[in-house]
């Protein structure tokens, strides 16, 4: 049990980071040139509305007191109203979390399904043709722009084969998954390139490890050595790689949601930037940052669980 002690004290260590995230998101909106109240309400705001906002956020007070009000509002689950949607930003974001979460999860699952066989073939044929092919494909795959890859997939799967929808999101779970097919494939193709490069190296390392040699010496067939010893040992670095790349994954989802008009947080962010809905920009940035911190914390817990040697 004592290996899991970090689960208790890590959140305390994360407090400075969470404090920093709140400062940056606070500063983001305050940096906009001009009167913040006018910026937040738009150009056609009435003087009474501006006065109300000035009072609500204490805009006439010193900046550190304004920050205190910002945190106090956050504690009550309020960040301020979206100009466009007229509801509180955090409530608005809550309605947009599900599509983004589903997109990220399906992309990760799909990319592992692509990367596992690719890296297994490459590692077991190291230095031969299949290995070279996998290395070239994965080196190239990293450079595929997601917005362009999405359109190419649309041409092939939607226009030529008429298999998947081009945009939108469904109501039921099968409908949602059907709409997520192309968006998650877009992200998965890039992500699997990243995973394959690391997984291939990890597998080559474990194929040569003492564990694998000992298993072979006991007469275990190569296939079983691979499934029972090589694969589990190679997966630990991959979990960490996924956690490190969560920021990149979120960035990809922002772009892909915009291409496929998926009603997630990324699409909300991009639309908010165009409509100068700064409170929404601030809120989405903060929620994404907290999600990144949370994912890294979860990855630590998973690593400790699957690998008993790791101590944090």
């Amino acid at each position, binding site marked *: 049990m004592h290996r899991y002690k970090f689960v208790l004290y890590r959140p305390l260590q994360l407090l400075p980071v969470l404090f920093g995230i709140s400062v*940056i998101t606070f500063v983001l909106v305050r940096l906009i040139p001009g009167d913040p109240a006018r910026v937040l309400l738009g150009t056609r705001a009435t003087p009474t509305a501006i006065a109300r906002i000035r009072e609500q956020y204490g805009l006439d007070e010193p900046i550190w007191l304004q920050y205190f009000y910002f945190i106090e509002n956050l504690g009550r689950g309020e960040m301020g109203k979206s100009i466009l949607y007229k509801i509180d930003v955090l409530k608005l974001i809550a309605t947009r979390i599900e599509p983004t979460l589903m997109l990220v999860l399906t992309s990760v699952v799909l990319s592992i399904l692509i990367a596992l066989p690719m890296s297994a073939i490459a590692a077991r044929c190291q230095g031969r043709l299949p290995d070279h092919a996998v290395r070239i494909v994965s080196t190239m795959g990293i450079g595929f722009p997601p917005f*362009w890859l999405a359109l190419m997939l649309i041409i092939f799967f939607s226009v030529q084969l008429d298999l998947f929808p081009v945009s939108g999101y469904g109501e039921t779970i099968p409908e949602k998954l059907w709409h997520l097919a192309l968006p998650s494939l877009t992200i998965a193709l890039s992500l699997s390139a990243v995973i394959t490069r690391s997984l291939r190296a990890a597998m080559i390392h474990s194929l040569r490890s003492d564990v694998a040699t000992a298993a072979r010496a006991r007469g275990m067939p190569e296939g079983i050595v691979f499934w029972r010893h090589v694969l589990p040992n190679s997966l630990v670095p991959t979990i960490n790689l996924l956690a490190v790349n969560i920021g990149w994954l979120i960035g990809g989802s922002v772009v892909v949601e915009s291409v496929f008009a998926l009603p997630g947080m990324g699409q909300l962010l991009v639309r908010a930037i165009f409509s100068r809905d700064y409170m929404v920009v601030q809120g989405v940035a903060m929620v994404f940052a907290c999600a990144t911190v949370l994912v890294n914390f979860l990855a630590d817990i998973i690593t400790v669980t699957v690998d008993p040697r790791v101590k944090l």
Partner: protein
Amino acid sequence: MSAPAVRLPVSRGLSRWLGEHLSLLAGAGILAFFILLALAAPLVAPYDPVAQMADVRLQPPSLAHPFGTDNFGRDVLSRVIWGTRIDLQIAFIGVAFPFVIGTLLGTVAGFFGGIVDTVFMRVIDIILAFPFLVLMLSIIAILGPGLASFYIAMALVGWVSYARLVRAQILVLKNSDYAVAAVSLGFSRARIMFRHLLPNAIAGSLVFVMSDAVLVLLNGAAISYLGLGVQPPTAEWGIMVAEGQPFVTTAWWITLFPGLSIVFLAFAFSLLGDALGDLLGVHE
């Protein structure tokens, strides 16, 4: 009779050298091709990249227009060639600012240690908590769309990776014998940092420059695609893909060629990164 005996090992050595440095040669070759294309754009491009020709709208690839034309009748090949200038600039400037700022800050933080180092590391942790593209977009939202905003946002956000890389190296190197010797000789701190430690600490950052160039190119093109970077009618690959999107089912050539250009330029940077990593003995 002796001539072939002498020539054989030489040619074998050469082909072996070529084989071992294939990714270096291929990467440098593709990058050189794009740089030449960018420099020679006015000479090579068959048409004006922004000239609209109403009579040749949405033409498929032909001899007159090898990459076809877009919905304004602009020649896609010429726009791809001129776009090389902007996208190479995005990759170079987008990497240069963070590289210089991050290396300087990381060297200073690692060398002095103590409170300076702690403060820098905390700031880095906080910036890294934000997804890169999300923080970039938030800063561009405040500064307003455009390439200048993109470069400023890159400088504000991108330096953290370089600072972390070089700081970790400096922390190890500052206790090495030659550093201690330099201190005992009475050299100034600046001289020890930048003449003795930095040249030995920089290898990892130089390799990272190449993989970072891929990310910067993709992010720059993505931000232009979203409409927040390069503005029309400028020819840039990301915005060309966005402009071709409404016609993707009927006129695929408008989006295909600028996208492929991004893929090949990114591939060149990746290959150079792998090759540099092998040459300098650095692995992630």
